């Protein structure tokens, strides 16, 4: 009888260990799956954000040549924000703004710089001062 009780106890303990191990394994598999899902979601969100920024960038490029000052200003502010938020786009954005100064901004005589020129210079200077 004692032998049977010992065997029963051993069997029970083994069952508990096996059950616990199985529980841990299932929890680990679920955690891995959840992490992969989160990573995929994050990648998708980043891709969507970059698509949106590319669209904003392209639109701003077009708006820089608009006749209306307020449209050009909007484009300059958008490009400034892109340069701030996306380090890998900062250089092309600053080069684009420099190109605007070379190719588009005309003479304003002896007066003060127009607001679009001033804002571009401020944007460039913000970067150039800290270099």
């Amino acid at each position, binding site marked *: 009888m004692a032998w049977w009780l010992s065997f029963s106890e051993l069997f029970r303990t083994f069952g508990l260990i096996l059950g616990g191990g199985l529980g841990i394994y299932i929890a680990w598999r679920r955690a891995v799956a959840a992490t992969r899902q989160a990573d995929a979601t994050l990648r998708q969100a980043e891709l969507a954000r970059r698509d949106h920024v590319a669209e904003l960038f392209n639109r701003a490029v077009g708006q820089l040549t608009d006749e209306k000052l307020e449209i050009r200003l909007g484009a300059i502010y958008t490009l400034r924000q892109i340069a701030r938020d996306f380090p890998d786009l*900062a*250089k092309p954005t600053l080069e684009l703004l*420099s190109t605007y100064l070379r190719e588009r*901004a005309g003479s304003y005589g002896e007066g*003060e710089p127009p607001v679009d*020129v001033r804002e571009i210079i401020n944007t460039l*200077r*913000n970067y150039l*001062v*800290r270099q």
Partner: protein
Amino acid sequence: MTNPAHGGFSDAEGFELDVRGAFLRRTDLSFANLERANLSGADFSNALLRGANFKDANLEGTILKGADLTDARNLTRSQIAGAVIDEHTKLPRGLSADDSAVGG
């Protein structure tokens, strides 16, 4: 990603200003790092360029009439010789209007 301590820009490694031929009178690029910048032919009349770094910058034909270059760094005689200055141009210590074709 944003670094407010640096004017909000995180990085634009390798960016060199190229504003050749641009009309930039009365603009303010004081203390800017203009290393290897191409400013040739640009009109910086009455501009503020105090403390700017001009190391290896191209100033060929750059108009600096009345510009303030006080405390500008790494500005050489040959750069000044290639630029156009006048009696109102404020040059950094050690450089004088004699280094350029004044009023050109």
